[in-house]
């Protein structure tokens, strides 16, 4: 059974533990600037929203890549960047309509959520269960997914 990240912004306090966990897992340092998951702060409304790649079925980033540097991990369903193959052309960063593929100016490559190979560090670190890793069939995902599905007319 495939699993997905479930994000529940109403539980988020904006502590950024997820960003630190993500950056440590992927870059070996506590560095929110290099996190694949980001918490957005709606200051005037007192709201926070963690957001990252939904591993959408359309896989805009993967199809846009000119050198096959983004591939599907069959065991997790994640779209993963193969760093060695990525040339850093950034086409995927403009192709992803969710804004969840970012260019890392230090490495010259792009980065995106890869579900940590099936054990997402962000979900593990979240103190309020605003980020959980659940069966993809779980109904709570519908709200998140429904947006992703309706977004862009299929080509």
């Amino acid at each position, binding site marked *: 059974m495939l699993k997905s990240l479930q994000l529940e912004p109403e539980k988020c306090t904006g502590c950024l533990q997820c960003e630190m966990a993500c950056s440590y897992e992927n870059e070996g340092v506590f560095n929110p600037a290099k996190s694949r998951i980001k918490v957005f702060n709606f200051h005037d409304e007192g709201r926070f929203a963690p957001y990252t790649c939904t591993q959408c079925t359309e896989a805009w980033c993967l199809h846009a890549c000119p050198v096959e540097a983004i591939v599907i991990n069959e065991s997790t369903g994640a779209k993963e960047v193969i760093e060695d193959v990525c040339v850093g052309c950034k086409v995927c960063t403009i192709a992803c309509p969710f804004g969840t593929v*970012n260019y890392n100016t230090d490495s010259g490559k792009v980065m995106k959520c890869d579900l940590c190979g099936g054990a997402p560090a962000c979900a593990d670190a979240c103190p309020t269960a605003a980020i959980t890793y659940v069966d993809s069939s779980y109904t709570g995902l519908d709200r998140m997914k429904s947006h992703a599905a309706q977004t862009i007319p299929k080509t």
Partner: protein
Amino acid sequence: MRHVIIGTGPAGVTAAETLKKLDPESVVTMIGDEPEPPYSRMAIPYLLIDQIVESGTYLRKNSEHYKELGISRVEGLVDSINQEKSEVNLNGGATVGYDRLLIASGSTPVTPPIDGVKHPLVSSCWTLEDARRISEVAKPNTDVVLMGAGFIGCIILEALAKSGANLTVIEMEDRMVPRMMNDTAGNLIKDWCESRGVSVNTSTRVESITEAGRGLSVSLSNGKNIPADLVVSATGVKPNIGFLDSTDIKTDLGILVNRQMQTTDPHIFAAGDVAQGKDFSSEEFSVQAIQPTAVEHGQLAAKNMFGLKNAVHQGSVNMNVLDTLGLISSSFGLWMGVENGESCELLNKERFRYINLQFCEDVLIGATSLGLTEHVGVLRGLIQTKTKLGVWKDRLIEDPTKIMEAYLGSTHAIGHNANIMK
């Protein structure tokens, strides 16, 4: 069913793969005129700076990829199409028969009408062959002149600058990337390049190129003559449609297609740089010549060649991303705005940061950014979903950097912390 595809770029390869997925029994043949496995022109700049080897440019990395999928490849240059016989004629006399044909023959650099432009030391930078030739010459302390600072010119600009050569850029228009960026952004990119040692001459034409000593002398419309060991020409590309002259397939700037990517011949389809496909923003049919559009075209054409119903093109968003000596820029959709639209922008010249958003009512229709690397794709998302921004439009006008917040705020229900608000 015999599917034949002319062209082995992203549109052709994507179409071939899609066809095999939809109809594993079909015979799929790709015809290409270059000896290498299908590769990406987007990757050529990275090859020029030795960041990757040639195989790093290949569209598919597994050398047996096409064989494993049962896609056959024929090397050859297409001479003409015989619609009556449903055959493609290759130079040298060979023919390939089809039931459905996809023309994804891409484009070729235009040769500007300039004296001396045919000199061997004047090269385009379009094919792997071109890249090899340029790498040979562009070395430290050589003089290289780049004609054209459009999208393609800018993509190779970095590689040329990194080669250590003294680089001079000549652009006819009054700014860099004039078809992708407005005045502010185009000139900011110019300032950036000049601050990094590249001489950029805008509103300047190359009048002629003549042999001088061991190299060339390039005379400019501003009266100057500059020496060059190599001139790289990047003054634009044109669709490869010459072989259609003997057919009744209608063309304009590119091949005319309907929303099924079908040409005026119902058995023949077109995709990629060669096709005049639907533009999402203008709703007109135009040539976009960009990678993501080529892939979209390829997928869509394949579905229609297979006979899927309802595979109708909604239009591709024109978008580009550039890295000019480390300054990253992007533009989307109607970045130049529309009449009666609204816009907002934020500029910091010292930091080379710029963002410009264009709205029609409360929908984002275009955007330009400089120095933005975080969440930039959401601009495409907002444009293509025609998200009604509601209150977020005014918030974006106040602070255009809040693009992710606008997307999340106008598409996701984000509650307050329910945990503490029992």
